[in-house]
């Protein structure tokens, strides 16, 4: 049987840009299917639509495609561009919420990146790791700062430094 084995979050330590100011959501699961089969489910539009979102994916580096935005998330679509496609090991694309129902097309909102890594398991299955990166880590920092700000709110700068 397959099941979700872990979900964790943390600072992205290895990245091409801004390595310390982004947060990543990592979800891993073990799948009974072989990497080739999982790859098909990640890259064939009909199969991908059956579990992720309606799409017109083309798993070629540089290719652009669109996912229909899920209910409850902002934007009416997700604009994607393939950054890496190495069958059947690695698929990485940009994930950019865009557009608003009933409003003007406002272009990109917050850019994030989704990486699918496929590792073969000894039993012939696949361990799939999905890393959704690019969430502003300032969210965390700011929440952490809330307490100290409450203490020093309205205080002169000198006091702020001494605190």
């Amino acid at each position: 049987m397959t099941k979700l084995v872990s979900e964790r979050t943390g600072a992205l330590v290895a990245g091409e840009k801004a390595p310390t100011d982004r947060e990543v959501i990592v979800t891993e699961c073990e799948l009974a299917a072989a990497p080739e089969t999982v790859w098909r489910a990640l890259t064939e539009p009909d199969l991908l639509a059956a579990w992720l979102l309606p799409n017109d994916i083309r798993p070629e580096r540089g290719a652009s495609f669109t996912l229909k935005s899920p209910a409850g998330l902002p934007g009416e679509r997700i604009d994607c561009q393939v950054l890496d496609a190495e069958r059947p090991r690695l698929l990485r694309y940009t994930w950019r919420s865009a557009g608003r129902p009933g409003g003007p097309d406002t272009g990109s909102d917050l850019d994030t990146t989704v990486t699918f890594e496929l590792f073969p398991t000894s039993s012939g299955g696949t361990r799939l790791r999905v890393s959704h990166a690019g969430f502003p880590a300032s969210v965390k920092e700011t929440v952490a700062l809330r307490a100290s700000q409450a203490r020093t709110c309205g205080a002169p700068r000198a006091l702020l430094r001494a605190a």
Partner: protein
Amino acid sequence: MQEEQIFRALADPTRRAMFEALARSERTVSELRRRFSISQPAVSQHIATLRRVGLVRERRQGRFSRYRAEPTGLSPLIGWIDRYRTFWPERLERLQGVLKDLEP
């Protein structure tokens, strides 16, 4: 939708950096202008955008206004991230079902 406005406000790298600077300490417009090497009107415009979406608040001090990040302003964004935290496990469970059909 409030969270989309927040996304748009933070989509600009300068504004995002400005917000992060204001989360660390309170600053005036001229302090921000020096830090970011952009014109005063540009700083004021960025501040206005951040204030409009509730990410920054103003404190008048004599002739000057000082600005700092409003931590609760990020709540919709935190909600957005939390939704993705549940989104991926849900979708991967569906993927398992799809794979079962592919490999009976």
